[in-house]
């Protein structure tokens, strides 16, 4: 039912607009004012327009469009349906905040010329947009790989540093591998129809084996991009390497776009319903969530910490997806819709909150030049805007009500509670484990975020130079405010947001959860007796009680407030060095989960004049999975050299033997 094309055309125009903005930057590649102060805010406005188009498109029907590019038989097909619209909102709204922040963020004299950076940045945005809109395999892959490529260039914009080069290389390699797997999955998915449009793929009938192949290929392909364990290794390298707005987009949006790919593939295009797909996804998601959060807890670099936290969140999203698949396979569409809603909701939440935090770290980085947690501290005094806005993101990621992170976790746990209705004992047994794992990850996330926020913004400055730190500029504040407002609104009006999301669940699963009760402030996706949560009331309650308490205290209390030095155990003054470091804060986690880490400790000796303690945490998967693969490739490469020893007689012999072998074969 193709309606008017207004929203889709608008979205395409916005994509083209982003590309145009990028190209305009090349007019004056070194013109900082031109690129940053004019073009980036324009891009931000386009982001808002895109989000609006997405919201409008949700209530309209499906729109399709064919662009005259690509192969003659396979021009680029575009389609805007509810699922795409949800991700358009995500992309547009996040990009709006990030772009306006970036307008104030870029400074002269850093890495790539600003014009070029602007081009890469906007190509990145546009390619993500077209990934979401693509309706045939070629257009999808084209946009998908452009996304990888442009983000690669963004990651390597500081290419003089060897570790950034390494990160970029790893990133593009994994991205490319994943893309190849996705291409293959499309190849299987078209089921011999030779039609590469998604329309044809929806109609294709696949055997369960082929369908499972598609599922695994797509899980590998999109999982590599999303950063699920064990394909996550590139993520903590690449995300921190990029400039902060780019990290924000990569972590906040690109990972979600990968999730979009998986949703599109497995819920829309692929019709097979094999229950253990969901179980595999769920298991991987749990593993990823726990793995990510554990590693995040022991990081000492703030951006790496956030990157690992992104891995955790992707894990949570995968858990939701797994639940959706399980429910769908057992023909429980209403519950599947609930789980899917949780998944989509978490995507939105993560996009806003993680972008906000990455931007916050960007401001900190700019103000202090420091990303090591061990050298920060006390910035709430110097940078109140960043600190208070980052607190919102921190609480959101930590899953604290009434912020948005909690809503999706709440929904996810609610959907876990429906698993006993699945007529399968094995799953019934495993799901409590899943729920437990999820809650554990969520609780650890709170630990992690306390560490993140407390060490950066609270306490005393650990270095003298932090006293010169300054708060971010007004453009950056707008960006941070926008995203923080998103976190709060998503947290307080879940019923309204879910009403939007339900278009997508209706479209994909032909079911929603009971809609009539979503109006107003009450949020009861099943029934108010079953479960209810009203964040607005919650927030109102807390705020009212805080005010009340303050009021009462003000009336009842007449003492004065005296400022003094903190208590130094009587005798000596406290120095910033006495504070807990990030290593120290992560120490309990390290101790409890020691078997999962591979640690190298440098302990100080008692006679050391300048005692030095260092712990290096490594991913065991490197040694177990990646190093063997690399050394295997190298061994084979060494072995292949043997056929080329430079002797012409041997070469002739090869020809001769080849000839003889073929002749014998033909004979």
């Amino acid at each position, binding site marked *: 039912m193709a309606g008017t094309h207004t929203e889709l055309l608008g979205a395409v125009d916005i994509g083209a607009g982003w590309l145009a903005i990028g190209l305009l930057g090349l007019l004056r590649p070194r013109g900082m004012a031109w690129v940053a102060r004019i073009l980036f805010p324009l891009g931000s406005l386009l982001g808002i327009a895109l989000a609006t188009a997405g919201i409008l498109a949700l209530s309209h029907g499906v729109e399709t469009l064919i662009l005259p590019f690509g192969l003659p038989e396979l021009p680029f097909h575009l389609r805007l349906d509810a699922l795409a619209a949800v991700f358009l909102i995500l992309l547009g709204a996040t990009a709006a905040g990030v772009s306006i922040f970036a307008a104030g963020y870029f400074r002269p004299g850093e890495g790539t010329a600003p014009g070029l950076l602007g081009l890469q940045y906007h190509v990145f945005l546009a390619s993500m947009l077209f990934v979401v809109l693509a309706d045939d395999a070629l257009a999808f892959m*084209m946009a998908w790989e452009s996304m990888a490529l442009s983000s690669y260039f963004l990651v390597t914009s500081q290419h003089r540093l060897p570790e950034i*080069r390494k990160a970029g290389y790893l990133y593009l390699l994994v991205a490319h591998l994943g893309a190849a797997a996705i291409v293959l999955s499309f190849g299987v998915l078209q089921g011999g129809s030779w039609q590469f449009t998604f329309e044809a793929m929806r109609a294709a009938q696949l055997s369960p084996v082929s369908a499972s192949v598609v599922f695994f290929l797509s899980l590998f392909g999109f999982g590599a991009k999303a950063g699920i364990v064990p394909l996550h290794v590139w993520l903590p390298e690449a995300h921190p390497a990029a400039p902060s707005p780019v990290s924000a987009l990569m972590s906040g949006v690109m990972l979600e776009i990968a999730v979009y790919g998986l949703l599109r593939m497995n819920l829309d295009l692929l019709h097979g319903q094999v229950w253990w797909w969901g179980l595999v996804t769920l298991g991987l998601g749990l593993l990823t969530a726990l793995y990510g959060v554990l590693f995040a807890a022991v990081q000492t670099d703030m951006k790496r910490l956030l990157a690992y936290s992104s891995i955790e969140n992707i894990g949570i999203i995968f858990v939701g997806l797994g639940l959706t698949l399980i429910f769908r396979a057992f023909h429980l569409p209403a519950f599947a819709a609930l789980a899917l809603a949780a998944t989509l909701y978490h995507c939105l939440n993560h996009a806003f909150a993680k972008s906000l935090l990455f931007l916050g770290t960007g401001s900190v980085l700019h103000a202090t030049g420091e990303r090591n947690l061990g050298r920060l501290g006390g910035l709430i005094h110097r940078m109140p805007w960043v600190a208070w806005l980052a607190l919102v993101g921190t609480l959101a990621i930590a899953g604290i009500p009434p912020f948005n992170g909690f809503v999706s976790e709440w929904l996810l746990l609610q959907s876990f509670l429906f698993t006993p209705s699945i007529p399968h004992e094995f799953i019934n047994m495993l799901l409590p484990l899943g729920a437990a794992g999820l809650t554990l990850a969520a609780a650890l996330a709170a630990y992690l975020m306390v560490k993140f926020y407390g060490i950066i913004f609270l306490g005393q400055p650990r270095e003298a130079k932090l006293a010169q730190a300054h708060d971010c500029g007004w453009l950056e504040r707008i960006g941070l405010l926008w995203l923080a407002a998103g976190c709060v609104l998503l947290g307080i009006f879940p019923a309204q947001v879910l009403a939007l999301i339900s278009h997508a669940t209706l479209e994909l699963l032909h079911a929603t959860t009971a809609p009539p009760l979503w109006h107003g402030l009450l949020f009861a996706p099943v029934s108010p007796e079953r479960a209810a949560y009203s964040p607005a009331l919650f927030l109102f309650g807390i705020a009212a009680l805080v005010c009340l308490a303050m009021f009462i205290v003000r009336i009842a209390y007449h003492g004065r407030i005296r400022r003094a030095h903190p208590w130094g155990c009587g005798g000596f003054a406290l120095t910033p060095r006495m504070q807990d470091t990030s290593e120290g804060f992560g120490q309990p986690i390290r101790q409890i989960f020691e078997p999962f880490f591979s640690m190298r400790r440098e302990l100080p000796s008692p006679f050391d004049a300048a005692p030095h303690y260092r712990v290096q945490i490594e991913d065991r998967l490197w040694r177990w999975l990646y190093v063997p693969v690399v050394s295997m490739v190298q061994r084979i490469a060494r072995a292949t050299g043997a056929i080329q020893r430079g002797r012409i007689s041997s070469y002739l012999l090869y*020809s001769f033997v080849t000839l003889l072998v073929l002749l014998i074969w033909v004979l």
Partner: protein
Amino acid sequence: MAMLLLLAIPLAGALFLGLTGNRRWAPEGNALISAATLVAAIWLTGSVDAKGTVFFLGGQFFVDSFSVFLVALTALIGFTTALFSRSYMRVEVQHARIGGGRMRLYLGLYQLFIFTMLLALTSNNLGILWVAMEGATLATVLLVSLYHTAAGIEAAWKYFILCGVGIALALFGTVLMYFAASKLLGSQGTNALLWTQLEQVRGQLDARVLSLAFVFLLVGYGTKVGLAPLHNWLPDAHAEGPAPVSAVLSGLLLNVALYAVVRCKVLVAGAAHSALAGNLMMGFGLLTMTLAAFLLWRQKDIKRLFAYSSVEHMGIATFAFGMGGPVANFAALLHMTVHSLTKSSLFFTAGEAAQKTGTQLMEKIRSLLTLSPSTGWALMLGTLAILGMPPFGVFTSEFLILITAVRDHPWSTPFLLLALAVAFSAIFFRVQAMVFGESPPSQLSPRSSLVPTFVHLGLVLMLGVYIPLHLAQWYNAAAQLLG
């Protein structure tokens, strides 16, 4: 007429430049002659477009939808390479790597080489095709050893002997094919080797003889294509010659050799009523890709690296042609086109980089981006294009090939993936290190002449997002023709 001009211009140019190539204006003359060839090719293309297959000289020469775009491509790359070599060879003369006499040799042989390529592509006679292929070897062997270095001579010798032997085997295959055909078409006259004639009667040709013939032809022409394990001459020859020569070797000669194989395959597949020819090509293609991918990991020399990459891509194209069918053939033709454009541009850039840094060793080339942004970006973008990243055209062709493989021959996909992944990791690892990084102390920096490079990359980019209707029609017609 157009065809006559197409062949006559480079041949006359070869004679002319062979006599006057040491003059100061000779490189410009070279470019001018190539431009004239290009014009003739465009003219010819236009007439093919208007009238369909064009015959010439009583059917001895013809251009159909399969060869027309290769002719155009050859003329185009011939022209851009001539443009590139204008400045490149001047720098080589300035650096006293070659003298005036050898400049004459270079220019004369360059035109001769273009002539043999065009002859091979336009000939309807399989015998003439063979003669032209051998002629191409002869023309380039002296170009490979142009610098008269020990390594150059060694490479040229290997090139000569291996390709000579290979092409001799191809002659045996041609004889066998003639043998099979002469029974049907009569040995009188020369029709029995005309491809168009053979194609009409291919169903009646003796399957056994043709299978045998195909083995010889495949091993023979396959040596020139660079199929493993017959590829050993290729990296040596590509690495030791001047950059423009590497560019045309990789961009044109390999294509033409593959063209010859595919022409033969059509006949054999039609006669043998079996998938033998296709299977052989697929097997060789996969083996070539995989082996080349692993060999890429070992490379230290920038031109050798890209030479192995050519081997790998020829493997991919051979595999695709082996699969057959409209989509795979389409993809293979597109792949030939975009690979030629991309790889020749990469050799231009590699030559530039080597001139700027004074070495072909990759570990000594660092931070091209700061040394010369245009060279750095050209290398980076070209590499990404050749590695199959969109929006470049190589991506489109590889996409189609992968998707066809997964549908028709799922067993081959692990090999394809392995080869693509290993090749990607190897090439990108090296190139990133060369393009990025801290800049070394000042090195030689002659003026860049990368217009041809960016023209090529622009074309590849265009083919990635948009294929002109005419080109697509040729591809489709050719894909139908090839079965």
